[in-house]
């Protein structure tokens, strides 16, 4: 029977199929960070269990860490405790770890692909929902809770029921100024935040094939925002070129053997999907979110929608609440919305390609008066690469802050937070109420659009600046 990419990776990892269809699924890579692991290690300790495969596990700190100079350590006591707890745990259980001052440190979902730790055809998990990112390599990668983190640490497996297959095909070519971020925001706007629930989304079509690995990682990253368990893209030459030569990737003859296997993973002709969505890339514009759900998006040349036009009572009430929180008026042009803060970073958009896109917009321009603009590279490796290219100078000269790697203002867990009422143009992935700090207001957009907002001081169609 013809199989999908997801079916193939799944089948290759089934240890045992239980009576009710639940599978014991083998996990090839387990990424661990400081926030969702302390209780898992504590559980192991209490039960006298060890980590079954330290050599398939990697730990890093990202969520809690300050993005200012860190040589003096972490000031905030609770954050420090969480980081120190991770350091104690990795030492006790023998888990490989990239320390805070190591150049390889960064956001877990940036680090995995960058180091070649995440590879095509693997099963990859992490106690973090944006683990879907790694699916861009053609891996089955999904987020898990802390009990499952403990389960994987102890057994290197998970009990899982197979997800359904969903195909999102984006055909055609993107217009200039439109990026991977706009594709995925448009997809979520179309299918909704529960549109992928119970499914693994495979992204295909010429617009996806044309994306570089950074763009593919951005698209898969936000699969969870569409409710999907994971997002995947079949590995191809773009993938192999990306993986080749990475520090933890196979090398030489082993790499060639791996590529031979990875080539077999693409979905078979005639394989069935439970659901298919087709989109036309040419119709996608630069997108921004206007509400507090990632499905609340619109093209930048559009307006804030009017709840009065929504028939469903619950949906209307939802929209009213969102507009109230966001302090927006129906009918207001999106490009009229002034912003206070610009955040370029997060596991969605903090790779070198994202920083290049931002720098190319701000080159020769300056951040608008009164706007705080920050760039937070996704890892030490990205930061150094950007500095080697001189991107840091372009951004700093334009008035941006140039910070140390971490999750930063993507979530309000470290010192980078919005104040109540502040409005932020953000390249992150969630615009939930209070996500970037209590009372903060988030507009999701691409790095180029964020850079455009920084220089004009309002949400801006980047196509007018280039």
């Amino acid at each position: 029977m013809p199989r999908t990419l997801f079916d193939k990776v799944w089948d290759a990892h089934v240890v045992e199929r239980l009576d009710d269809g639940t599978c014991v699924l083998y996990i090839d890579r387990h990424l661990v960070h400081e926030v969702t692991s302390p209780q898992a290690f504590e559980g192991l300790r209490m039960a006298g269990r060890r980590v079954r495969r330290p050599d398939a596990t990697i730990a890093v700190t990202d969520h809690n860490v300050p993005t200012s100079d860190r040589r003096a350590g972490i000031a905030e006591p609770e954050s420090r405790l969480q980081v120190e707890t991770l350091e104690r745990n990795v030492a006790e259980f023998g888990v490989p770890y990239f320390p805070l001052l190591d150049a390889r440190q960064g956001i877990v979902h940036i680090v995995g692909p960058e180091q070649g730790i995440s590879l095509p055809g693997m099963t990859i998990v992490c106690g973090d929902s944006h683990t879907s990112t790694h699916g861009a390599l053609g891996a089955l990668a999904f987020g898990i809770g802390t009990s499952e983190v403990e389960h994987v640490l102890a057994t290197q497996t998970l009990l899982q029921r197979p997800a359904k297959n969903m195909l999102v095909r984006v055909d055609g070519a993107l217009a200039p100024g439109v990026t991977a971020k706009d594709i995925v925001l448009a997809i979520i706007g179309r299918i909704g935040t529960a549109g992928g629930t119970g499914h693994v989304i495979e992204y295909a079509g010429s617009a996806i094939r044309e994306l570089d690995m950074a763009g593919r990682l951005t698209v898969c990253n936000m699969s969870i925002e569409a409710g999907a368990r994971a997002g995947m893209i079949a590995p191809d030459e773009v993938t192999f070129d990306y993986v080749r030569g990475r520090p933890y990737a196979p090398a030489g003859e082993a790499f060639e053997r791996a590529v031979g296997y990875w080539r077999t993973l693409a979905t078979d002709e005639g394989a069935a999907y439970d659901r298919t969505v087709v989109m036309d890339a040419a119709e996608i514009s630069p997108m921004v979110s206007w509400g507090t759900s990632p499905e609340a998006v619109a093209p930048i040349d559009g307006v804030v929608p009017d709840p009065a036009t929504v028939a469903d009572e619950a949906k209307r009430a939802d929209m009213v609440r969102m507009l109230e929180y966001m302090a927006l008026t129906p009918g207001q042009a999106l490009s009229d919305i002034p912003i206070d803060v610009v955040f370029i970073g997060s596991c969605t958009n903090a790779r070198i390609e994202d920083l290049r896109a931002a720098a190319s917009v701000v080159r020769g321009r300056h951040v608008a008066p009164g706007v705080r603009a920050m760039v937070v590279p996704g890892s030490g490796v990205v930061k150094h690469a950007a500095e080697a290219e001189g991107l840091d100078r372009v951004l700093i000269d334009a008035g941006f802050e140039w910070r140390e790697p971490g999750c930063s203002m993507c979530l309000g867990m470290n010192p980078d937070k919005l104040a109540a009422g502040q409005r932020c143009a953000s390249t992150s992935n969630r615009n939930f109420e209070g996500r970037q700090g209590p009372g903060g207001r988030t507009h999701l957009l691409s790095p180029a659009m964020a850079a455009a907002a920084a220089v004009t001081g309002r949400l801006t169609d980047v196509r007018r600046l280039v």
Partner: protein
Amino acid sequence: MRAFTVLTSIAAPLPMANVDTDKIIPARFLKTIRRTGLGAHLFDTLRFDQSGAERPGFVLNQPQYRNAEILIAHENFGCGSSREHAPWALLDFGIRCVIAPDFADIFHANCFKNGVLPIALPRAVCDRLMEDARLGANARLTVDLQRQVVVRPNGEEVAFEIAPLPRKMLLEGLDEIGQTMQRGPAIDAYEARARQEHSWMPAIALG
């Protein structure tokens, strides 16, 4: 894990869709290294204003619902992050069962690991149960996992679906890791096979 068999309780109606994990427990409360104590911050921004005072309008601040062990909500409950702090916060507050039309996948899985039962029922049924919940403190719902029914205050029974394995785990309060560890030989065999078939796959060794 504490077993879940039958629960009779007041239910709190929360007629809101897309209750995301940041609403259930905001990120700033995730800096704990324990599972307990999060109940104080459950639904923090909905429950408290910026000065920390209770918002009287919020359902769990109303006297008749403070001890609710069942929560009823609208679509896509628990969407967002993988934080198990969400069911930990619910459980720590005292909520052991959430009824909604549907749930986000990871939240749904996390509930089962902690003895919290998520029940998916059609929107119209959820709305009817919310009406029941508003009848006051005597209007209790009974959730019977063995029989897979919710019993309304008028005695009417509503059947619900649940996968066999999670049901068994909850009913018996089983330790899933202990169960899986008994499959050690099968995992060993898989690893031996994978070492042959996927010999390209490197181990992570820090240099």
